[in-house]
Each structure stands twice: as structure tokens, then as C-alpha cells.
């Protein structure tokens, strides 16, 4: 049995670093998987920081947006500690610990790949962590540009816009005569409840948010992520639904309320001077679209090097909902700042 285990473990223990790579790195108790897929010979790499806290980057490995990008650049998907398919016995995650993980990942990538242009992308919570990391001007020197996909940065302000979004949606439903009593209850709840994004309220808010299509306009997020995985990956690949769920609940219970009361001060956002592309969904009810303009104004990036791209048929996951448009815009941005 022991020999079998060792034999099985030795499988897949060589790596070519050729753009079809999957490996683990360890840091302070966490074993984190990384997928590097695509055109590594382009010497242009995009690191994607998933949302959550507790989502998975690896689970998005087959989505059309990345597939479109892989022809031109290398896409690095990484499951953060206590998230997705990460393993080990991590210490309670903190912002600084996750920032350390990112720093280690970047050094590993440079050690094993020839990289001329490195871009950082973050979605929602991943956008928050990316900006948390980039506050330090010395860290910005590693990157050619930053892509923020509906990334948060000021959660108390986010709550204000989420409440407004939900009240507007409920009002519209009542006016249209759609489930009027249900949405009347929702209006009363949003009008009278403090801290709608805090852990103690998140499940009530979550139910209303799903009903209002705040995250995706059609279907569920899982339809786009786990649903995009090939049957082979789902049945006998890295896919690990139970671990992903336990990790998600674990990190959310540890970090959620701290995160929901966090904000990156405007002066720190003003320290970020990287070329930045902000991608937002018009119908985002999680980090509503007015947050994009406020972030645009707070960033220290010169106006000519920052832009907002709003997807008209997306909510909180434009890279899942309108993948071709998002991929094309990301490539345009990367090409512009890889050659500059």
C-alpha cells in the first residue's frame, strides 16, 4: 500500500514549464495550486486573483475568457490559501499573509519562466487584495499593468450602493407587479437593517441578491465555473467540490466581517500609479457600477493610463458573462502596455 502511494505520488512529478503546467507551492502551512496555461513564449503573463474570499481560480481554468487569452499570453490561475482547491493547515488568513503568498508566487514564476511583462488582474475580493498589494509603490514596479474586474476597495461605501441597488430593484419589481409581496418585504428589510453585508445578515441579503440577479444576469456562477469544466476534469481532475465548499465557509467565517468593514484609504489608492483597466458589469449588484468611477478618480494613475470598460449585459462577473468582449479588451490593454 505504501509503495502504491509513493508510486502514485511520483506521477506527474515532472514539469516542462511549457504553458501546460500545474504545480503546488507551499507557504506558511498552505499548499496552493497554480495553473499556468497558454503562450509562455510570448513572455507576457497575467496573474488572476480570484474573488470570494474563498472562491477558486483553478475552477475557472476552462472558461472561454481565459481560452481566448491563452493564444496570446500565459494565464496564471492560483487558488489562494483557504480557498478553492488549496490544502494544508493554514494559519488564519490575513491580508498580509495573502500578500506574502502573492509575492512568493511572483518570485516562483520569475524563477521558472522568462517573463518580460507581468500583469495583475483581480476580481471582486481578488481586486481588493491586488490593490492592497499594489499600495506599496515598490511592488508596482513588478507589473506592466493592473486589471481590476469589479474589485472592491471600500466596503462601507459598497454597502451603501448595494442597498441602493436592492431598493431600486425591489421598487421596480413592485411597480411591475412581480412578486410584489416578496419584494415589499425585501424593501422593508433593506430599509431597516444595518450592516446588510455582515455575516449575520449575509444569508438574508444573499437570498435577495440571487433573486435580483446581482451576481450574474442568467443562471448561477457555478454554471459558468464548475459548469465549464470538462467531464474528465470534473470526474477525475483537480476538481474538489467538498474541499472547495469547506475552504469557502472556513475563510468566510474567519475574514468576512473584517473584510466587509475594510476600506483602502483614498491616499493609499492614490499611491497606485500603474496603468489600470477597470472592467465592470452595468448590472452589478455586488460591487455596483458607480464604484468604478469613484475608484477611477481615487487611483493615482495618470488619466491617460486608466480606463473604465462597462459591459452592458453583465452583472458582477463580466469575464464569465461576456467573455469574448472582456478578453478582447484585456488583450488590447496588455498589448498597449507590453509595447510601451
Amino acid at each position, binding site marked *: 500500500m505504501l509503495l502504491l502511494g509513493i508510486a502514485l505520488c511520483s506521477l506527474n512529478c515532472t514539469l516542462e514549464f511549457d504553458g501546460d503546467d500545474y504545480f503546488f507551492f507551499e507557504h506558511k502551512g498552505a499548499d496552493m*495550486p497554480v495553473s499556468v496555461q497558454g503562450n509562455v513564449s510570448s513572455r507576457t503573463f497575467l496573474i488572476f486573483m480570484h474573488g470570494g474570499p474563498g472562491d477558486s481560480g483553478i475552477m475557472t481554468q476552462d472558461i472561454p475568457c481565459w481560452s481566448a487569452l491563452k493564444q496570446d499570453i500565459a494565464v496564471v490561475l492560483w487558488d489562494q490559501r483557504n480557498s478553492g482547491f488549496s490544502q494544508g493547515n493554514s494559519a488564519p488568513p490575513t491580508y498580509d499573509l495573502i500578500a506574502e503568498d502573492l509575492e512568493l508566487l511572483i518570485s516562483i514564476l520569475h524563477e521558472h519562466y522568462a517573463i518580460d511583462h507581468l500583469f495583475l488582474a483581480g476580481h471582486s475580493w481578488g481586486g481588493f487584495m491586488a490593490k492592497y498589494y499594489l499600495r506599496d509603490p515598490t511592488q508596482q514596479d513588478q507589473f506592466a499593468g493592473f486589471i481590476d474586474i469589479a474589485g472592491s476597495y471600500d466596503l462601507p461605501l459598497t454597502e451603501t450602493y448595494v442597498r441602493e441597488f436592492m431598493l431600486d430593484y425591489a421598487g421596480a419589481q413592485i411597480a411591475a407587479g412581480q412578486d410584489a409581496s416578496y419584494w415589499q418585504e425585501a424593501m422593508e428589510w433593506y430599509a431597516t437593517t444595518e450592516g446588510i453585508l455582515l455575516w449575520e445578515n449575509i444569508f438574508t441579503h444573499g437570498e435577495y441578491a440571487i433573486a435580483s440577479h446581482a451576481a450574474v444576469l442568467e443562471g448561477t456562477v457555478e454554471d459558468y465555473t464548475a459548469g465549464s469544466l470538462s467531464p474528465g476534469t470534473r470526474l477525475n481532475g483537480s476538481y474538489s467540490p467538498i474541499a472547495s465548499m469547506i475552504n469557502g465557509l472556513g475563510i468566510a467565517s474567519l475574514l468576512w466581517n473584517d473584510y466587509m468593514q475594510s476600506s483602502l484609504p483614498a491616499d493609499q489608492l492614490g499611491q497606485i500609479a500603474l496603468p489600470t483597466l477597470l472592467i465592470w458589469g452595468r448590472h452589478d449588484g455586488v460591487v455596483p457600477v458607480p464604484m468604478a468611477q469613484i475608484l477611477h478618480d481615487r487611483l493615482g494613475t495618470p488619466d491617460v493610463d486608466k480606463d473604465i470598460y462597462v459591459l452592458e449585459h453583465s452583472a458582477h462577473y463580466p469575464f464569465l458573462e461576456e467573455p469574448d468582449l472582456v478578453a478582447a479588451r484585456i488583450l488590447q490593454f496588455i498589448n498597449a502596455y507590453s509595447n510601451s
Partner: protein
Amino acid sequence: MRQLIHPSAYAWAMNEFGAEMNMKRGKELRRHTMFSSRSVLFGVLMVIRISSTLPLGAEATEVATSQDAGIAIYWGAGYFGDLVTHPGIYALLKYPFLSRGAHQGFVQIKSFSYYHFQNHVALSLGVEVGYKATGKRGYFFDVSMGVGYLHTFLAGYTINTANTGRPSCMPSMGITVLGWDLAKTKLALPLQIHFLRLSAFGQYPFNRLILPHLAVEIGLTGTLTTFGKSLQRE
């Protein structure tokens, strides 16, 4: 009470406790407090015994089990599939410490290993105690639970770690939904087939939590040795 419990079951339970009871009046039963440990154990044994009156159980005296002839040690082996499709194998040694006709209490030492592609390789060693009930045509089910040691290695290339794996404590349980004892068929083979066994085990710590795993097993159990038989004869 007597309408619900087979008389032989009642007698058996009384005998198990060695109580000198009046079976017709059940006076001794009233002496037990409702929540005493003895009455709880009595209840558990009664439930087990009641099951012998169901169609599964058959008449105990008619179902001669192989271990009745002596103390047997069994081997077991088969497919172990974490979440069904992550392939592996298991092997076990089983010792039935209590046999009453169709009913058996057993303890087993079990090891399994499986491979979850790009995720982890697991090796385990554990001990479980269980209960098995066999029908007169040889069909059986069993349940078991226990605790063990689980060691997981990363299944893939590792950059900055030697991948010596991580240790975990492993509570476990399982149920053979359907098994068939060929010794009780015309074939009279000393083999038992586990057509479907569902198991669950935990991995603790996993990011400071317990990670539940689900698995299926399909395998065989056979008699390894009956050394106890010769000991009994002596």
C-alpha cells in the same frame, strides 16, 4: 411489548445481561431506571436482536456462520473510490469478536490509498468496530465506525516543498449496503462479496477544519485463517 419483540429476542437479551428475570411478567425490567447506562445498552442490544425477527435476519439457528466453527480472521480487498472516481484500493483484516447466529460484531484494521489527480494522494491506516447481519440466503449488510491515521501527499509537481505529506486524524464510518456470503450458497465458497459499500471519513486538520470525504468500495472478503479453531480444540 411481547407483540413487538420476538420471544427469543427477549430471552436472548435477558440472557446477555445475566439477569434472573421473570420473563412473563418482566418485573426486573422495572427495576432499571430509564436512563441508566445498563438500560441504554439493553436497548441497543434489543434493537439488534429485534432485527433478527425481520426477514433479513432469518432464524439464527438455521444460519450457521463459518466463524461458529472457530475463531476466524478474514482478509478483505477491493476498489476504493474517493468520490467514486478517484481510484484506489483498500485492504483489511477483520476479526469477528462476537457471533450470534446471523449477527456478528467485528473489529477490523483497514488501510486504503487513492489518487486524486492534481490534488492529492492519500494513505490511511485505521481500526473500526462494526456490526454485520446476514440473511439465510447469504445476503448481508454491515456498518462500522472507527478512527485512524491519514497521510496526504500533493499529487503534482511541487515547487518549494519536499512533499513529504501532511498527517491527519481520520474518523471513519461505512456501511455495506449489499453483500453476499458465498459460503451460504450452493457454491459454498469461503468468500463474501461487498457489492456496494459506502464510506465516509474525515481529514483533520484541513485548514483548521475537518474535511469530510465520501467514497465507495467494491470488494471481497475471505477467510484468512481459522487458527482459533485449532486453539479451541486444544
